[in-house]
C-alpha cells in the first residue's frame, strides 16, 4: 500500500530537516565565538542531503531523504586586529568563525517550511488511510 510508504518518506524528510535546523542553530549560536588560532575557530557546518532510492520498490522510483554527512564550510575565516582582546594571539589578531548569519537565517526558514510541508503530507496520508479503513461502512 503506497500510502503507508508516504509516512516513511515524510518521516525521513522530517528527520533530515531537523538535522539541518540543528546545524543551523549550532552555527548561529557560535557566530561570535572568536578564538586566537585558525585551527581552534568554529567553522560553519552544513548537512549533505541525498535521495534513498529503493530499486526493488516494484518499479516505482520513489525514495526518502538521507543525510550523507555534515561538512564544514571551507569559506575563509575572518581575521581581526584587536590587540586589546583577551583572546588575541601574539601578533594581536583574533579569528571570527566563517558563519554568515543572513545565510543561516534563510536556511532556518527554508528548513522549517520544508518540515511543515512534510508534516502536512504525513497528516493528509493518515486521513486518507483512516477513510480507506472505513470503506463500505
Amino acid at each position, binding site marked *: 500500500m503506497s500510502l503507508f510508504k508516504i509516512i516513511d518518506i515524510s518521516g525521513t524528510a522530517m528527520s533530515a530537516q531537523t538535522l539541518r535546523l540543528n546545524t543551523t542553530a549550532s552555527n548561529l549560536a557560535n557566530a561570535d565565538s572568536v578564538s586566537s588560532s585558525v585551527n581552534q575557530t568554529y567553522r560553519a557546518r552544513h548537512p549533505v*542531503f541525498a535521495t534513498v532510492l529503493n530499486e526493488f520498490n516494484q518499479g*516505482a522510483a520513489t525514495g526518502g531523504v538521507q543525510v550523507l554527512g555534515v561538512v564544514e564550510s571551507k569559506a575563509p575565516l575572518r581575521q581581526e586586529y584587536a590587540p586589546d582582546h583577551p583572546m588575541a594571539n601574539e601578533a594581536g589578531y583574533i579569528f571570527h568563525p566563517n558563519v554568515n548569519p543572513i545565510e543561516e537565517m534563510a536556511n532556518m526558514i527554508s528548513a522549517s517550511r*520544508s518540515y511543515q510541508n512534510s508534516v502536512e503530507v504525513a497528516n493528509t*496520508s493518515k486521513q*486518507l488511510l483512516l477513510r480507506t479503513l472505513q470503506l*463500505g461502512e
Partner: protein
Amino acid sequence: MSISFDSALGIHPYALSLWSRRAELLAANLANADTPDYKARDIDFKTALQQAQGTALPLQVTHAKHLPSAAGQLPGGEALYRVPLQASIDGNTVDSQVEHGKFMQNALQYQASLHFLSGSFKGLRSALKGE
C-alpha cells in the same frame, strides 16, 4: 442474474490504487525538495489508468531480490520526469508550491474515488439484504 463485483465497482478500484501511487510519488518529490540533483517525477494518469485496467495477474514477489515481471509491475507504467519551469542551480527540479498543490488535488481525487466505491458497496449490501 448474478452480481459481478467488477461491473458494480467499475473503474474506481483501479483509480484508487493509481491515486495512492501518485500520492507516493508527489510525497517523495516534496520530501526531496532540498536534495541536490533530485528530479521531480509524476505519472501520466490517463495512460496509467488504461494500462491498469488491462494488466494481467501480477507475479508474486516473496523476496527482496526477486525481480518483478513486466506484467507484475505496479499499474501505471513508469514514472516520468517533470519539465521544470525554472531550473535550479543545484540540479533540483522540485517546485514545492506546484507539488503541494498537486498533492492536495490528488488527495481530494482519492477521496472522491473512495466515496464512489463506498457508495457501490452500500448499494451491493442493500441489494443482498433485499431491503
